[in-house]
């Protein structure tokens, strides 16, 4: 299942880092950050609990880039 979320991130490199971090989060199959439109598209693995996976994604992203934001 794919879902798109609005994000807020300032630099292109941080956006790449967010993408990488989201991808490595458990329950996420693939993630693509679109820096220009400020969106992240997350493909969840089967049976993943979307809301808890998203909490984890946000936590991990905050770790690498403090002032990034993902709006659920």
């Amino acid at each position: 299942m794919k879902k798109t979320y609005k994000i807020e991130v300032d630099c292109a490199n941080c956006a790449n880092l967010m993408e990488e971090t989201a991808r490595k989060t458990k329950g996420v199959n693939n993630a693509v950050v679109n820096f220009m439109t400020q969106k992240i598209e997350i493909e969840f693995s089967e049976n993943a609990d979307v809301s808890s996976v998203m909490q984890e994604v946000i936590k991990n992203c905050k770790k690498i880039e403090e002032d990034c934001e993902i709006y659920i």
Partner: protein
Amino acid sequence: MNKKQKKMLIRIIAASVLLTGLHFVPINGALRFIAYMIPYYIIGNDIIKKAYKGIINLKPFDESLLMAIATLGAIILAIYNEIHGQTGDYVEAIAVMLFYQIGEFFQSTAVTKSRKHISELMDIRPDYANIERNGAIEKVNPNEVSVGDTIIITAGEKVPLDGIIIEGNSTINTSALTGESIPKTAGINDEIISGSINLTGLLKVRVTKNFGESTVSKILELVENASSKKSKSENFITKFARVYTPIVVFSAIILAILPPVFRITFLNMPALWSTWIYRALTFLVISCPCALVISIPLTFFAGIGGASRAGILIKGSNCIETLSNIKTVVFDKTGTLTQGVFEVNAVHHNKIDEKQLIEYAALAESTSLHPIALSLKKAYNKKIDLTRVKDVQEISGNGIIAQIDDTEVIAGNEKIMKKFGIEPIICHSSGTIIHVAINKNYMGHIVISDVIKPEAENTIKELKKIGIKNIIMLTGDLKKAAQNVAEKLRITEFYAELLPNDKLNKMEEIINNKNTAAFAGDGINDAPVLSRADIGIAMGAMGSDAAIEAADVVLMDDNPLKIPLAVKISKKCLSIVKQNILFALIVKFICLILGAAGIANMWLAVFADVGVMILCILNAFRMLFFNDFHVKIKS
């Protein structure tokens, strides 16, 4: 400017003022150190914090860490100098941090601005739909309207959903979708596309697609996802950034340690630690790859955004890249180079007046909705008096027999003529031939053929001008018709009488023989060919899901001139990308060498980092103006 940017601006101004002020304050020693640390803290506290977090989270190679090490290093060197009796230079460290932040600030505002600029261009998302409920008009979210509902669109409003007009007349502006600035007129039973603007009248529209399926949603989805499909140059930069930074950092460490050690052990000279550490710090400042990381996606984004404003939807940065490299353009004939509508071209061997012959044929075909019948009615160009027509008998696929003004008229192909024992004169023109007989006497025939689009000739010329040498036409039509079009448009290579499957095979052959090839078709029955081509260009795709799905480039209207324009946009885009990559790499490389040799100081290093980034962003901005320029010329 958002809140964060405003805060940043204040910090930049405060630090600059303090730094300049301190220059005139006569203080020394520890007091001077503390005084200088104030602007440093103001401008750099977040960077230091980020660098610290990076180390803790084991993600050390980010630009914050580089800046932190470089500036803190420079400060320590300054303290070291102070202790040894010289005046330490704190200004440099603070200035480096200051310039770095100015660069970041500039980047962030530039990106926000261009993002806004481009999304304004694509501001086609409707906010509401007017729906009639219990006699009152209500504004609702377009999402809540379902198929079959009737919506009301007043003058000046955006059309929120695709539908069919059931009441009212108006002119419709589709420029946000197609780039075409001349409004279209629309009346009852006309289809109306979401995202266009109702200019004059009040319209009642029966909704045919829900919001998610409507044209406007499809377009927005396509454009917004476009820049997620990364091009080779973007992937190159991402990979490059991943190796470049660590390499420079390790080189900096080696530069700081190896030469002094070498000097002590082999040359018996003083180590000059501070000189070499300073050079290593310069290295670190240059090492940030942000000029590339930011300017290249920005260029592609501007290219995609600008193209979509001209009615050209490009599905990804990778498509821009391929499009800029195409050497061959293959056209489908009908609907792409020709209008796909039929027109009366000539009347031959007529024994009665030309106009009268067309009149009889038009009257005979008056009840039919076949394209041929429509073209006859159009050529007749008068209101058809249906009382003159009686006993219409259609012989499927062959023609029509009808009583007109009490004479028997037969109109149709050779077969129907022969069936009634009439000997038709065989025509050698290309196109569909309608023979006409009155009271079983042969009266001549009418040649109906497809019309070449007025822009087609210029399209071919433009394509040749921008270096596309191979232009090929494929068609399922008869050879004679194809040859006729090819000659008029000066296309030297064409293949006729192809079934859809043959088209696919031919396309494969072309791709195997020649370099990158694009295929342009109307997407109705050539979807497989569209997806097989290196670049599939679907024309007149407004409302056609299949074409939007299969193609890489979607032209919202059916103007073939958009094809050379799309190629031009992509070429421009790629040339800016290449300029930026080359410029940034060369400047950085030179500065690295100068830094290692001790010629470049930290000021030059800051230029190599921030200056190059600003120049690259400004260069990327040219993409915005390029598109504007073309759109203006067109309209």
